[in-house]
């Protein structure tokens, strides 16, 4: 049964890579504007869960409903369009295009939806100001620090006004100070736009920024609120 008013729900997700069962009956749901942390040790299946929820990877079985639409029933092109227009992404590293400047990186999702370069970069610069990285607009990713790079990535995730942001270990490569600042900016920005956030992390201090926690272990998920 779908939780009432949920933006995204997943039921009985199963996914195997060869003999390894990355997901083994995982469940998930998130409401608009909610921040949910997906926690678990390395290799527990949390990143696979995120990839399945975002339509990046197709599960072997189970259902994922986004706004009442079944993800697995969509074509690859439809899922790509969904990711372009409704979702935003922040990964641990390796996500910024090294040859583009920071402002061009932030403007990229808008350009993918057909916006002109100038208009896209104007909007991008606005988000960079909010995330305090507007001074980096002409620099390339190789010329900025890890924390700055993550803030540029968050600006990029938010620039197209997504309803759902997927963040996979967004502070994994940062020190604690930078990590906290990045989380503050991410959650503040998400709340201000009423965007939901699926936050994959193995750090409890990062998970503390969420409204709810889900623990994934051996491919199965458990809602911590209900356990409590």
């Amino acid at each position: 049964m779908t939780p009432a008013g949920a933006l995204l729900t997943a039921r009985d997700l199963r996914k195997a890579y060869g003999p390894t069962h990355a997901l083994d009956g995982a469940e998930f749901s998130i409401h608009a504007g909610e921040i949910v942390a997906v926690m678990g040790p390395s290799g527990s299946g949390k990143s696979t869960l995120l990839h399945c929820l975002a339509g990046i990877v197709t599960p072997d079985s189970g259902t994922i409903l986004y706004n009442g639409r079944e993800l697995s029933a969509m074509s690859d092109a439809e899922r790509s369009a969904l990711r372009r227009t409704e979702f935003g992404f922040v990964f641990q590293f390796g996500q910024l295009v090294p040859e583009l400047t920071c402002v061009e990186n932030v403007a990229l999702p808008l350009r993918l939806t057909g916006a002109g370069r100038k208009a896209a970069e104007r909007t991008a610069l606005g988000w960079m100001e909010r995330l305090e990285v507007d001074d980096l607009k002409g620099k390339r990713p190789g010329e900025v620090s890890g924390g700055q790079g993550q803030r540029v990535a968050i600006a990029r995730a938010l620039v197209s006004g997504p309803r759902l942001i997927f963040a996979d270990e967004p502070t994994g490569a940062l020190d604690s100070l930078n990590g906290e600042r990045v989380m503050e900016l991410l959650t503040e920005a998400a709340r201000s736009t009423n965007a939901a956030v699926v936050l994959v992390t193995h750090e409890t201090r990062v998970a503390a920024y969420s409204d709810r926690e889900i623990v994934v272990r051996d491919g199965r998920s458990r809602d911590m609120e209900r356990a409590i």
Partner: protein
Amino acid sequence: MTTLSPPPTAPHESRAPTPPGLVGSWLRDLGIGLRFAVAGGREGWFRTLLTAVGVGLGVALLLVTTALPNALQGRHDREMDRSELRYGDTLDKAADDTLLFTRVDTEFRNQSVRGRMLQPEGPRAPVPPGLNALPKPGEMVVSPALRDLLTSSDGELLARRLDYDVVGTIADDGLVGPGELAYYVGADIPGASPENGADGRIDSFGEVRTDRPMGPVLVLLVVVMFVVLLMPVGVFIAAAVRFGGDRRDRRLAALRLVGADGQMVRRTAAGEAFAGALIGLLIGAGLFLAARQLAGQVRLDYVTVFSHDLDPSLLLVLLVAVTVPASAVAVTLFALRGVVIEPLGVVRTAKPSRRRLWWRLLLPVAGVGLLYPMFGQGDGNGDFNQWMVTCGVVLILIGITALLPWLVEACVNRLGGGGLSWQLAVRRLQLSSGTAARMVNGIAVAVAGAIALQMLFAGVEDDYVEPTGVDRSQAQMVVSPRGDSSATEGLAETDSRLRAADGVRRTMPHASTWVSAKPTSEDSEAQVTVGSCAVLGLMAKLPSCRDGDVFAVDGESRELAKPGTKLYFEPIWGSDDTEAPPWTVPASVRAATAVEDPMGNITGGLLVTTGALPQEATSTLRGEIYVQIDESVPDVREHVRNAAAMAGPYTRTYELQATQVDDDFRTVRKGLFIGATCVMLLIGVSLLVSQLEQLRERKKLLSALVAFGTRRRTLCLSVLWQTAVPIALGLVLATVVGITLGAVLLKMAAASIAVDWAGVAAMAGIGAGVVLLVTGLSLPPLLRLMRPDGLRTE
């Protein structure tokens, strides 16, 4: 209470290490690099293998090239050993050590078949190399390739022509190559002599050894050809050494983390490249040995080479063995100039300083400067300094590799606008224009060299390729009976056989001889051509004609053709004066105007219809039959040759060609074709590996881009632009440099400068085609790399 044992003492606490000297540091760091290369896990092995295979391919090609002069010399030596050429005239008298030979060469489906008919005149007659004994009459000794062909279904038509008993095979020392089609057939023709059918009488083979030196222009062609073919191989090896450089840098960063300084990691990188080059040398040697073994079975444009001929000179092998690893180290150190390798896996490229044009331009300018003193030396007996030619051409072509990064940088920095795929590509090129330029360096050098050679070939072609004047619309083949068949009966018999052959449309038999005003005179001769009215009509505009008519063609011999003049047939060849048959020019002789015959010749003298020729004169005639064939009939030429062979062993058949190509020129052109094929393949492989390598490096990024919704088409187009922009610039530069080099070479050869635009377009098109092919081949892996599951790291 338990007491903990003291911790182990670190070596430096017990003994202060002695810092190694410069050589020691180099050796230590090179050693680390060597270990990295072979013990660096799967990643390390993959990189080493990429480099080694790349270097190996280049080394194998270098070794083959260095072995070619020996191979060609071996072929030439054996050709000379079996030659029947003699100093002085043919031997006059038969003896117990003499041999009559007749060249009975033929052709089969565009392949030459070397044939010799041998008739010993005594028990000590010489035996050609490759044979144990002379074949008996009716027996034939054949080359292994000809034996295979004759016994196969493909060779059925040829087997009908060479209808002799095969009693053995010719050994290697009697053949120029393993694929050569050759045979010796024994004969016992009564009355045969050099004057009657046979080509000559000899008492030994291989008496004359000609080492005809090539003309200066051909030398220039060969030297330039070698440089043009080997330069891209060098560029390829340099590129191969840098395969997987980014991953190597990440591993080196780990070394920095444990305290290695910048110099140490550079030396370690050099050690890794050295290891790759060493393994590459071994792979190259292995590939060369394999190629050498297979050489006998490889046929390129009908040229085959014995395995034992492919022996590179020791000096050149040593040169390759030293130069390749040394270049690998030099290229690696050069490539690391602008790279700062830091700990924690951080690899940052230092902001490259703007590329300067002036020193890059110096290279081609210096090249032209070296070649300038040799302008015009190709005329007459001039001689080229081969080292200066080599250095000059190398400098000009290396100039491309120096100029291209500057050109790419200068152009892409000015590019902007366009769609997202264009933006991604342009930004990528702006960030790493050097990588893009390096990818197309090899192809640009090859195209420039090919354009220059094409211009040189086209410019000097007139000196080596002469139009024969043959009108192939009237006749495509000529059959020439000799010996006993030269009489009109023999000609008629050959003609009837030819007319019965499949695909023959028309035959034009005619015969010729000479007449003179006196039975002993060699002066005032006139040619006499005998044939039907139809055939004589091919040689002159006849007023009208019927059998029995005689025509005098305008020309110098008009005086002899006056009615009533008494003439003698072939006075010089008669053994005494009285044997020359006399003939009186009939009163009915009429004037005719000569036209070019199908062979492109103007026939002079007298045209005599068959009925007007005295019977006694027929023995002096030499016959020839023009044959018009139906090209649509399969194997029509072979049917004609077979019919001609049935008429007699001495009958020769030629195919009429519109042009005649100098043998040396043909050999050089063949060499270029073979070499260019190998180089283009090598460059294609190099491009593909570089392309895949770059895509692999960007796997994570490509997956991330696809994850947030980037269309695959956008990314594919971006990859295409990234290749297309540098290749377009590379081809423009290659065209400019190629035309300049071509013009310089033509100046040296003292030929007029003309740009063969069709050739230029063809060469540039081939270059672009290779790139398109490589891009096409890299698309499937690109699509695979763009799968979102590439984000998985576990």
